[in-house]
């Protein structure tokens, strides 16, 4: 709970918001903003809130109309090594296969699946900051951009993301990499000082990787602007505390949001 308090304190005071968030997402590559497959999408099936009505976000004037335009947008927005700071390098592979996205399965294990119809494009990029000590894991950052067919779909995806945190407080990112104690909290626009996006979710947990000294903090944040969601996940490692990881998350998310906003104008 300590983490969430910090998240909430940050959300409450900062106008640009985004402190850390965290989480999940990287499953061999990982999208964080996805959610289960299309089958679970419209859980409640229902009218979206006013601010989520299609294309109605004041900042969203020109949502991409087809998969190609959507993938262009994702490519222009997703953060890479140069955006994250000195010393970051691409992982191999650096980008996800654009016709797939990550899905959290029944057993709380992340895996990649083909994009459902209501998603136009999803792109994830993987960067890392090599550790000075070879025994440690590098500091790994995953950024992800998903363009949905409508704001309603994106809004439902946000709800589904929160649902995953409730369904799977423990998740397997890939073999040998687990997250435990996952907590998540959403903040719609205008609530608790959140003025950066139409909706935002922060998650946090403990990352159990292969390096020594764990578990380390694992933070993830996802923000929605109209039909587009941007996400960033940071897997902590030795030498970085929660604050470092949170700052990295915040800055990356903020950058992607501002890029998305200008792309959507």
């Amino acid at each position, binding site marked *: 709970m300590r983490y969430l*308090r910090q998240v*909430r*304190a940050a959300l*409450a005071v900062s106008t640009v918001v985004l402190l850390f968030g965290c989480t999940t997402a990287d499953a061999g590559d990982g999208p964080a903003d996805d959610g289960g497959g299309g089958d679970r999408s*419209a*859980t*409640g*099936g*229902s*009218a*979206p*809130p*006013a601010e*989520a009505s299609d294309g109605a976000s004041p900042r969203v004037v020109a949502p991409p109309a087809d998969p190609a335009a959507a993938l262009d947008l994702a490519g222009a927005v997703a953060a890479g090594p140069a955006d994250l700071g000195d010393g970051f390098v691409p992982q191999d592979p650096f980008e996800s296969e654009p016709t797939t996205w990550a899905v959290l399965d029944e057993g709380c294990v992340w895996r990649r699946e083909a994009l459902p119809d209501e998603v136009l494009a999803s792109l994830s990029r993987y960067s890392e900051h090599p550790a000075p000590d070879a025994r440690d894991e590098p500091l790994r950052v995953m950024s992800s951009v998903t363009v949905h067919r409508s704001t309603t779909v994106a*809004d*439902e995806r*946000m*709800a*589904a993301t*929160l*649902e995953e945190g*409730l*369904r799977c*407080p423990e998740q397997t990112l890939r073999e040998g990499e687990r997250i435990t104690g996952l*907590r998540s*909290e*959403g903040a*719609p626009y205008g*609530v*608790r000082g959140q003025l950066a996006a139409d909706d935002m979710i922060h998650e946090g947990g403990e990352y159990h990787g292969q390096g020594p000294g764990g578990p380390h903090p694992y933070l993830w944040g996802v923000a929605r602007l109209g039909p587009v969601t941007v996400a960033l996940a940071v897997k902590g490692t030795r030498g970085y505390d929660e604050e470092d990881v949170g700052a990295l998350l915040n800055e990356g998310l903020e950058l992607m949001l501002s890029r998305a906003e200008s792309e959507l104008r």
Partner: protein
Amino acid sequence: MRDLELSDPRRIGGYRLLRRIADGRTGVVYLARSLGGAPAALKVIRREHARDPEFRARFERDVAAARHVSARCLVGVLAADTAGGTMWAAFPYVPGPTLAETVAAHGPLPRGPVRTIGAMLAEVLAAVHQAGLAHLDVRPGHVQLVPDGPRLTGFGGTGTVGGTPGYQSPEQAGGGAVPPGPGTDVFSLGCVLAHVATGRHPFGTGTGRELLHRVVHEPADLADVPRSLLEVIEACLAKDPVLRPTAADLHAELADAGDTAGAGRAAGWLPSAVAADVNQRFHARLPAPGPELSEWLDPEPPPPARRPRQTQQPPPEPVPAPMSSRRRVLTALGGAGALLLGGALTTRLLLPRSGGAAPAEGRGQYAVGLHADLSGPHAKYGKGQRRGVTMAVEELNSLGDLGFSLSLREVDDGGDAERAAEVARSLIADPAVMAVIGPTGDAVARVAAEAYGAAGMPLFVLSAGNFAPRAAEDTLLLGRPDTATAAGAIPLVLAQELGASRVGLIDDRTADEHSWLVTRAVSDAVDRATVELTPRVLPAGTRDFAEVAEEFTAAGVDAVVYGGLADGAGRLAGALAEAGYQGSVVATQEALGAAFFELAGEAAAGWYFVTPYTDPIGDPDASGFATVHRGRFGGTVEPYAVEAYDATRMLVDAMRALAREPSGVTKGTLLTRLRDAEYHGLGRDLAFDAGGGYAGEGPLGYLYKADANGVRFRRALDPAAE
């Protein structure tokens, strides 16, 4: 006691009316003084009754009969007018708490005092019966305690024949062949003694009709009546009046084994706390006619914030010291009763306007602020709190031993955050306000906490449950577990009440933070090894619940937990019914609103609600409050009334203690003292941790069950008691 209202008469017969003591069913009772200055309780019959020829006849007969009886401890009629346009009767004023108030404040009395009270009341009734009359409305509210014993009031001048539900005899309830008579008084006395000995009502609580039914058909609940009293009380409560003892028998029986007839006069016949209240009330100074004139002219001063000059030089704290010499002179003039209208006006203009009404005596004056939603989405809760605070303030003032005068300042934020900040400023600017009860809704919680925190004003919170994140300068005193902690009661319901093994959990983002807190608390507390938990998070604005309802039904879910509001709850109930769902649903107080019942209709059945407020009618632990509340506001107790009553009593207890100390009453000393204080409330026990969080040992919440018409209290949800 309350101030007179503009519409109240100022003089009746030879009496000058000073205060309102009570609003009864048939009339209003005033504190009055005779021309000679003797205090009296003067009852003015309501116009609708005064116009009723039958009522008039009974009233006249009553008064005439009462004038023929005099007995020690019987409060008879001093004067009356049963023929004029205004019907009234004056009785000697008894400066003491009623048994109802005493039991509400102190709980049951030990058997010694119960015997003494019983013996003395039996003696009075024997005298009444001897004269060929009967009282027919013996109840705790008609018995007052003074230092040398009880006084029986309500004789002559009630004009009623029916008695009071819960204390009526079977023959009054229409269940016997014998008309009500002396035996009825004996039955009612048995009920009174049982109530005083147990703190409970021998026939429970409920509607008048339910009580009537039980009085006629069910045995009284005498579970914890002390054994030495059990036999005699049981005998009084015989359904057949012929089988009951006479009042004279009863007197002999009780006086014999207990304290003797003169018992009451001996010191120490009451437990010390009760005796202290009784003594204080007995010796309290009653309002004199003079100074009140100014109040009559200005019964409702405008809120202090609107007084332009006040904000420029607010006194830092009210001074509980003797008043200024000028004021003393003016009061002395008033006390001489020589002020005419013009004089009173002068008085009003000369008195400093700060802090509302002029102080009645040379004492400090403090106010409890109530920051409530009285017109917005949570107005029901705000109004409940207003009632509770009003009752406590009136009661505390009537005790007369506070050492200061106490008033209530209320502000309405309508549930709106901007308005909350504004009205908070007005309470903060009022130098008499030492602490604030509120706010009502979570939407304004943070704003209010910041405003009052910055001003160092203690903020006693009853209904809002989410103040995270907390700040160092917060002055919160949470009178309830916070939302997340309170939601820990839901798993108790799932496990114990419902035995649920497949639980569907719905976080409805329409309710944003409330739903988030509740569903996360449930998710954390549920043991996933034994319970299959299926969470669903719904986007904000969801109105169609068909899909989730069908999914849960198909999955064989046996309990659904819903974190959302009343509108969503009503729609969900409909969707679940449509899907053929057979299980239960558990939601919180936020879902328990009119919209739920309107939208759900019959589908409301099977829903459970966990709330932070109790129901004094249904909760045996809080039943003392229901009695007092009924006397003041009627039988329907609003949510948070008892909690607000308790909070006010706790606040004022602390103020009273501080007023006797050199440091005096300031917001700072009050906050410090309250954080260390404990209070055994009629509702929840109150205590706080260092940060002002709820740390009392009260229950996590209270469980209610719904049907199409409303909810019924089931029980307190207390993990320790499980």
